[in-house]
């Protein structure tokens, strides 16, 4: 075997992580297919669902990324009071449970929302949010924050020395520094969002205004829940995987090689900054778009916040435990896979994104049921599945950082014959603290809001906060549910903030 340019770390952690991902994605799919009685193939309605799914995902990813670039650029170039808090807050929509976010968006863009109230006041006819544009708007609301974070990270990873060099040589920064950076960062960001929107179901249906907006995930839902046609569900889930792999390969091929060298982590001081008004305008617009619906959720939930039934608090406690467990597991897996850093690893890292939540849950149920009472392992399975589902984001944040360290310090470490443990502990860990914190926060917040697996597994005493909130809604208790939604948002955000903050404790990003 050829010598690698970095110290060799143990093989088993990433193998273990890879196996877990495979079991929970392809394994659960296999379990569903195994139980299936194969019938007819796809009908025309399925094909139109596939078409709609791909189109809305492409549009959503395109607009999310295109709008995120100026926002990230403005945030990277300007320093102002409260900037750090704003960056964290702007990430919040991504952490919202679907139903909460939809109601928040409707409070702004809906028929009785702020926008139409304002238009009516001006004597302008109301606009309808429902349709393809509504689907894209909702997906941009969800995913633009993620794109901003990823692209901002790219901007901040350009060393200050490069900007100085560019300035002293008087070459255009946009062409020599920023464009190559974007070529490296944008394709994978686009891919992640494309895949997220590919498996969307409730958002697409609700905002799409009817069966025109049928996605593959809804067809899977129907196949499992209404027709109990596991064969069709498995077939449709396979199609999602194929689309995912195609997307991943495509993104892989167009991703530019990031030519950025090493720097001394200095703060960038830019002197090419004319017209601060444009940057601040962009930041303010993004803040209004992303934070106003959030503010409506807070306002809606406040009146009932302190009158919620006791069961809600118990459920919240359970959710926090699950979130912390899956965050820990997720970053461990991500770190193991990032240290390995091969193309297969990158593919394993995006696979969970293409997995249908319902197929994962159903497959896991089929795998577990013969041996254990599903309710007994509800929280454990939720933890495992969510750690896996958050893995792509964690990897996306961690892998480039680890790769950079390998390039920068690998030869030095090799020449020093550094021990495996010390390489990870002394060289890698301190330098990936920032993405590590970000990844942990993201994983924690995402599993706080999970409603996929838990709904299938949980009994009464394993109820998590999102499930409790949903059950409140099902029992007409919309006001209590709004209170629970606020608690959910607050907890998700706090967990994210603590982890993210820990990652930046010694940095000045």
């Amino acid at each position, binding site marked *: 075997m050829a010598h690698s340019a970095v110290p060799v770390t143990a093989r088993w952690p990433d193998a273990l992580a890879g196996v877990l991902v495979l079991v929970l994605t392809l394994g659960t799919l296999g379990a569903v297919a195994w139980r299936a009685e194969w019938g007819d193939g796809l009908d025309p309605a399925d094909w139109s669902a596939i078409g709609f799914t791909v189109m809305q995902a492409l549009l959503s990813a395109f607009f999310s990324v295109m709008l995120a670039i100026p926002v990230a650029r403005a945030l990277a170039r300007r320093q102002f009071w409260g900037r750090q808090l704003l960056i964290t807050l702007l990430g919040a929509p991504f952490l919202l449970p679907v139903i909460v976010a939809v109601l928040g968006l409707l409070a702004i863009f809906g028929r009785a929302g702020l926008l139409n109230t304002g238009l009516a006041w001006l004597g302008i006819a109301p606009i309808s949010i*429902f349709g393809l544009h509504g689907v894209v708007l909702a997906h941009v609301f969800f995913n633009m924050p993620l794109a901003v974070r990823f692209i901002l990270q790219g901007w901040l990873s350009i060393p200050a020395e490069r900007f100085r060099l560019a300035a002293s040589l008087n070459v255009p920064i946009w062409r020599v520094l920023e464009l190559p950076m974007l070529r490296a960062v944008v394709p994978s960001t686009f891919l992640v969002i494309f895949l997220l929107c590919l498996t969307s179901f409730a958002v697409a249906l609700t905002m799409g205004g009817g069966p025109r907006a049928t996605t593959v995930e*809804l067809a899977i839902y129907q196949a499992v829940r*209404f027709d109990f046609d596991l064969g069709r569900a498995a077939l449709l889930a396979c199609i999602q995987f194929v689309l995912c792999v195609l997307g991943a390969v495509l993104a892989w091929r167009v991703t530019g090689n990031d030519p950025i060298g090493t720097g001394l982590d200095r703060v960038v001081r830019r002197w090419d900054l004319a017209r601060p008004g444009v940057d601040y305008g962009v930041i303010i617009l993004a803040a209004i778009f992303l934070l106003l619906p959030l503010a409506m959720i807070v306002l809606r939930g406040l009146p009932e916040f302190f009158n919620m039934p006791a069961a809600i608090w118990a459920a919240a406690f359970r959710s926090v435990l699950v979130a912390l467990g899956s965050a820990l597991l997720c970053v461990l897996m991500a770190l193991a896979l990032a240290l390995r850093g091969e193309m297969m690893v990158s593919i394993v890292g995006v696979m969970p994104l293409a997995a249908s939540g319902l197929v994962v849950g159903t497959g896991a149920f089929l795998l577990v049921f013969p041996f254990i009472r599903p309710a007994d392992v509800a929280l454990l399975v939720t933890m495992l599945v969510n750690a896996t589902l958050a893995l792509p984001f964690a990897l996306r944040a961690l892998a480039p950082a680890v790769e950079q360290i390998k390039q920068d310090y690998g030869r030095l470490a090799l020449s020093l014959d550094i021990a495996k443990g010390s390489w990870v502990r002394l060289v890698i860990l301190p330098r990936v603290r920032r993405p590590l914190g970000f990844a942990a926060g993201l994983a924690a917040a995402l599993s706080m809001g999970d409603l996929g697996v838990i709904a299938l597994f949980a009994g009464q005493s394993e109820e998590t906060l999102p499930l409790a909130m949903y059950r409140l809604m099902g029992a007409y208790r919309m006001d209590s549910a709004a209170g629970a939604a606020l608690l959910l948002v607050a907890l998700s955000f706090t967990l994210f903030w603590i982890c993210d903050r820990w990652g930046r404790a010694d940095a000045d990003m």
Partner: protein
Amino acid sequence: MKKATYLPAVAGLALCATSAWAETPVLQVLTYDSFVTEWGPGPAIETAFEAECACDLQFVGAGDGAALLARLQLEGPRTDADIVLGLDTNLTAAARETGLFAPHGINADLDLPIEWTDADFLPFDWGYFAFVGNAGADAPQSLRALADSDAQIVIQDPRSSTPGLGLLMWVKTAYGDDAPALWADLSDNIVTVTSGWSEAYGMFLEGEADAVLSYTTSPAYHLIAEEDDSKVAWAFDEGHYMQVEVAGKVAGTDQPELADKFLAFMVSEGFQSVIPTTNWMYPAVTPEGGLPEGFETLVTPAKSLLLSPEDAAAKRDVALDEWRTALSR
């Protein structure tokens, strides 16, 4: 007796042993989520039944009515459930087909607007689907009038929600071959289609639509629990499609006698009196004291529509295609 001390050491045997030795037998009832919450009928019914059965009644919530059947099918004959409670007549044909159910054997005097003859499934409550809107606003008098009006409504997707499927059957039963035309005219009234009842009802309460597909009994919740009389159900001339919610005994149950006892209890006072103000539906057997105050204000349809389980199953796919085609334009 000496043997007993060794038994727990053997894992497989120990499992059998615990259930055999347990002081109280366990009856497991698989039902939908909102039945088991602290605001649902579950807790009161558990207390009442446990007081007379010397058993441990356990409710297991599994999503909504449709998820319930899928859950049972996933578990198959190995299921631990003794009773499945919460299917409706649009699902019972498929449920019967699984072969997992045994006849209920109960002969009860039911207060349903229709005659009940199903030997496998026994109703515990029922209601009428209806559009619920705000009091004082213009209320259409029929599905046709609604389709011709400007009223904006939210409905649920028949592919993922039981009320959504109910509306599909309602239109099909009332309009037969003209159903596609009605859907086509309704399509500009439909603000959006949600995946479940909760999202739709929440959107209506937030003012997104003039009305939402729910039940004639929904206003009773607002009236009784919130003292709010601002919600009304629209009475339609074509009649209203019914939802009859039923329970069935799992054929492979290890507690057949207890399961029979529960089904008999289900149509008795202790169970039925809890239903109106927890599940917000009509009880299958009217309690001795009559319905709670407030229920007399609800609209009572002149005509009750309901397809037999077999008809409902046979018409579903055609009706679904018509619905999808009409609304996809």
